[in-house]
């Protein structure tokens, strides 16, 4: 199971003396990849979901058309959760039960910092953004120190800090959100951008999400640090023997997670034109949905395995699935069926994956 996403399928070993293994026909090959590679599986699912809803929309089965503009505008709610899922990807891959429950708290607190800078302090946007993101990174550094150097279980360390950060956010402005004039003007950062043929794409997709994804991909898939991270996550003792700076590598993963949470804080404040002390904890909070997306995207909770691609496809799938479901019901049932859908997608895709892996003999 844990092997599936990150490793290429082992090519058949030419059995010496025996007949050379028969070449696998293309369709069979595609099927195998679609079933064994989590990313491929999700991609197929994504296409199916969109196609079905689009068709239903065309034939008036939905209360409104499920068209490109709608899909585009739905991306707005995907940006935060997707970035935070990438943050989880970083820390989960770093291994030893890695996880970051504090992203919600960081979003709240960094968001308040941002709000204070822009509002009461009246700073320009650019420096405020830098400060907010830096604040996020700093909080991540605290997590990283506790987990990598003091060796706290990540779950406990980040749970504790999430309580703390959340409380500080509330205390910072005595429960009140900051939403004065300059903060409201921040909404400009997330106004929608008319893209010919598509419709209005939320600006933050281009200004925040895409850059984050590109950088994350480069770091994880192409950089030396990425390699070190996967090594540490797979077996940190072996990594130590392979001269990896185990503690620093793990530490940096949490810094990265905090930094991304800081970015999300900026996006959220801009999107809602107000810095809310409970931004990251309202509703179900931001941590669990992010972890859910990461896990759906094939990030193996035991570490060392996970890809940016998988997380992105998972985020798209969930976002557009939810958007469709809302249109499928007149009344309030929609948001309930969203829960059902998410649950089923999680379990069934994983089930399909394991069955396939057994079928294709990749797990013994």
């Amino acid at each position: 199971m844990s092997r599936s996403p990150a490793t290429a399928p082992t090519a058949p070993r030419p059995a010496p003396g025996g007949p050379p293994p028969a070449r696998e026909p293309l369709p069979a090959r595609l099927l195998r990849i679609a079933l064994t590679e989590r990313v491929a599986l999700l991609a197929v699912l994504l296409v199916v979901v969109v196609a079905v809803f689009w068709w239903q929309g065309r034939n008036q089965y939905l209360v409104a058309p499920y068209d490109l503009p709608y899909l585009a505008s739905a991306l707005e709610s995907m940006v935060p959760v997707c970035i935070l899922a990438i943050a989880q990807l970083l820390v989960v891959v770093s291994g030893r039960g890695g996880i970051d429950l504090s992203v919600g708290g960081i979003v709240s607190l960094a968001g308040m910092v941002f709000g204070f800078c822009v509002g009461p302090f009246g700073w320009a946007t650019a420096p405020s953004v830098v400060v907010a993101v830096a604040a996020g990174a700093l909080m991540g550094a605290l997590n990283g120190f506790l987990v990598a150097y003091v060796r706290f279980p990540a779950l406990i360390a980040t749970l504790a800090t999430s309580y703390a950060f959340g409380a500080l956010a509330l205390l910072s402005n005595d429960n009140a959100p900051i939403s004065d004039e300059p903060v409201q003007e921040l909404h400009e950062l997330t106004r929608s951008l008319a893209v010919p043929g598509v419709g209005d794409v939320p600006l933050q997709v281009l200004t925040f999400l895409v850059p984050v994804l590109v950088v994350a991909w480069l770091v994880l898939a192409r950089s030396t640090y990425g390699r070190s991270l996967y090594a540490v996550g797979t077996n940190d003792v072996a990594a130590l023997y392979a001269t990896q700076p185990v503690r620093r590598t793990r530490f940096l993963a949490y810094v990265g997670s905090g930094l991304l949470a800081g970015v999300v804080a900026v996006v959220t404040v801009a999107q809602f034109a107000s810095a809310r002390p409970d931004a990251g904890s309202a509703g179900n909070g931001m941590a669990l949905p992010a972890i859910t997306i990461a896990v759906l995207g094939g990030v193996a909770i035991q570490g060392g395995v996970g890809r940016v691609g998988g997380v992105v496809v998972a985020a798209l799938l969930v976002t557009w699935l939810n958007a469709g479901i809302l249109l499928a019901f007149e009344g309030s049932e929609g948001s309930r069926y969203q829960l059902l859908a998410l649950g089923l997608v999680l379990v069934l895709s994983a089930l399909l994956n394991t069955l396939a892996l057994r079928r294709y003999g990749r797990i013994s």
Partner: protein
Amino acid sequence: SKKTDTAATGTDGADTTTVAFVPKLQGVPYFEAMNAGGEAAAAELGFEWVYRGSTTADAGAQTDIVKSLIQQEVDVLVVAPNDPDSMAPVLQDAADAGIEVMTADTDAPNSVREVFVNQATAEGIGTALTDSLLEAMGGKGKYAIVSCGQTAANLNSWIEVQKEVTAEKYPEAEIVDIVYAGEDEAKATSMAKDLMNAHPDLTGLVGECTSSAPGVAKAVAETGKIGQVFTVGLGTPQAMKQYLDEGSASTTILWDVEKLGYLTGWAGKQLADGTAFSATNEVSADLPAVEYTDSDKMLLLGPPLEITKDNVDQFDY
């Protein structure tokens, strides 16, 4: 089955107006009652009423739902925002899409909303809560408030009023603590008990929202302090009934939520038809004279109700 939504896809200029109402969250009796009122109005005044709420009370989920309604091209959009300022941007989007925007139950002052349907003024609610509690407490003594979401704008505005009124009208009374239990009745109960333990001379508790009102009453009942500690709160009648009957809750302050829903629906219809509101409006037989103040574009349902064990059975929610 096909959703025959002539109104929803308003392209074919069909005449039925659609008024959509987005509550803070679905399933709570309060908003379900508003929904009932809205449906009643829709039936009588002839428009389509859409009620769509999320399963969690947060701005993000609410935004997604508003988006789906914009996509649906409803004519009027009514929102009870979880976080007023956060709703402003998406309400702007709705207005840009040519939708009439209004708020009900909770206002979004800095938004483009054309009217706010207010159940009662903060003054009205705050004063009613304080008066009825101190009446039970005999005009003096220490009391504490168990509120819900720390950031809930309307609750906080009521609490402000309670502080003032207590200070001015009841010099011998004192608010000793304000705690936040979230939308969780069990937590409210446990915190209320903590408060009673922390202040043995406490004689009053206020449950500021529909989950903490029964919560504090339950705490009093469970600690056997009925008659020593008095509670009031903003609870929905059926949830409060048993506590009102056994006396662990003296009064619950509310308003006729179904009428509020009706008024909301009516107001939506007016907006859609482009009829302006007059200073006092005759909405229906039950709502002969609803006041409208142009300065803050607010329709006011009227003074809050004091629900006691005597009149609690008049309400079926």
